[in-house]
């Protein structure tokens, strides 16, 4: 089983070393192609004009912030069920990236909303649930920061992530329901007619580029986290060697 082989952090680091340059290369290429298509080949929307170009970053960012939570949930199952040593490293390093993508989705969404709806923020179902998602990401990051033992913090955060994963569909459903109650379809809906291929292709390329970016950043952050844990373990060992070391030396003077 190739997957389980990479449970060993050292082997994982070696794999990252090999894979990362390729991923970075593909990511840069995808972004170049996607941005070119978004600005030069994609047509203006007959209704929204050029602002439709914000969609090419907004939609992939929104998609990625959901995918990142999925990655974290799978990692959390890995932490709790299989006690996979890399699972909580993966979950921890995904959280700030997810928060950043969520932030991007929110900011581009409101910058798109201002010219389209005339306001930066509406309590629309989608925007509201993404805002809740951002709060959950930030809460998870805080939980990780407040606990110093990485193993315990990982398990606590895994439980919270899974409870959140259970709760996110409920939140989405209830916010949708609340929204139809309060706002009778005054907001421009994106899911109108089918999307024209000229718009769809740049969107897909940008989505691939964002996904590659996520994996690049995630792998790099995971590598940092592994190094951080090594530093921590070495420091603790150094402290236990140097300080109670004197006690140990007196305890066994025969040597």
């Amino acid at each position: 089983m190739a997957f389980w082989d990479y449970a060993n952090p050292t082997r994982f680091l070696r794999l990252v070393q090999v894979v990362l340059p390729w991923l970075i290369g593909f990511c840069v290429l995808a972004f170049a192609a996607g941005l070119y298509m978004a600005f030069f080949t994609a047509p203006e929307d007959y209704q929204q004009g050029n602002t439709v170009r914000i969609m090419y970053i907004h939609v992939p960012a929104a998609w990625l912030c959901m995918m990142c939570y999925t990655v974290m949930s799978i990692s959390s199952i890995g932490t709790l069920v299989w006690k996979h040593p890399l699972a909580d490293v993966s979950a921890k390093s995904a959280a700030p990236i997810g928060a950043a993508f969520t932030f991007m989705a929110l900011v581009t969404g409101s910058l798109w909303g201002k010219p389209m709806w005339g306001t930066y923020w509406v309590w629309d179902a989608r925007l509201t649930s993404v805002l809740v998602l951002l709060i959950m990401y930030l809460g998870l990051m805080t939980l990780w920061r407040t606990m110093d033992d990485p193993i315990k913090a990982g398990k606590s955060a895994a439980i919270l992530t899974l409870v959140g994963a259970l709760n996110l569909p409920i939140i989405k459903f209830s916010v949708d329901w609340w929204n139809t109650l309060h706002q009778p379809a005054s907001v421009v809906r994106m899911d109108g007619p089918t999307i024209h291929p000229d718009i769809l292709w740049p969107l897909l390329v940008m989505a691939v580029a964002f996904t590659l970016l996520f994996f690049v950043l995630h792998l790099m952050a995971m590598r940092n986290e592994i190094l951080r844990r090594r530093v921590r373990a070495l420091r603790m060992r150094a402290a236990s060697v140097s300080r109670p070391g004197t006690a140990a030396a007196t305890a066994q003077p025969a040597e």
Partner: protein
Amino acid sequence: MTGWAMALFQRDLRLSVRIGGSALVGVLFFLAVVTVIPFGVGPDLNLLARIGPAILWIGALLATLLGLDRLFQADREDGTLDLMMMAGRPLELVILIKCLAHWIATGLPLVVAAPLLAIFLNLDPVSMGAVTLTLLVGTPALTLIGAIGASLTVSLRRGGLLLAVLVIPLAIPVLIFGVSSADAAIHDPVPFLTPFLILCALTLIAAVVGPIASAAALRFSAD
């Protein structure tokens, strides 16, 4: 209910009523929140009547969050929690019983106080009854969801604020359906029963998910 469960329930109830009178403090906080709102939005009675259910619900949510950190903290400090976990009883059930006792000591007084505070907010009898009923059904869900946050932050020295941040996103559905069903009773955009039954369902879901997740968190923080 078997003997040990009853004993645990009575012990928890007695402790939370006695020590510091947490039940009374929660109600006082509820009163303070409701008093402060008209200073913020103005004393317009029509407006207050319209947003009254929302004010009562948010007040109840905040008051519940305020008391949650006492759910496990005191028992952890004096070692009782470790004894409970080693006693060989299902931890999920222990937590459920603790939550029940905690709710009766802190949640039920809020429900009882709600009709009284509703008078300040110019609610008519129908909506007064509706809000009280939704609070009666909904506040257990808040306590049960809060138990997850309480057990996650139990080992932290100052976990109260973090607890609130972690719990609030999870409590949003309860808030939405609680306020909606109270509103539905007043100026019915939908029949009262639709959101009310969903609120009941949320409480039942919380009664399953809350103890299970919270027991897992307590086990992990212990070893």
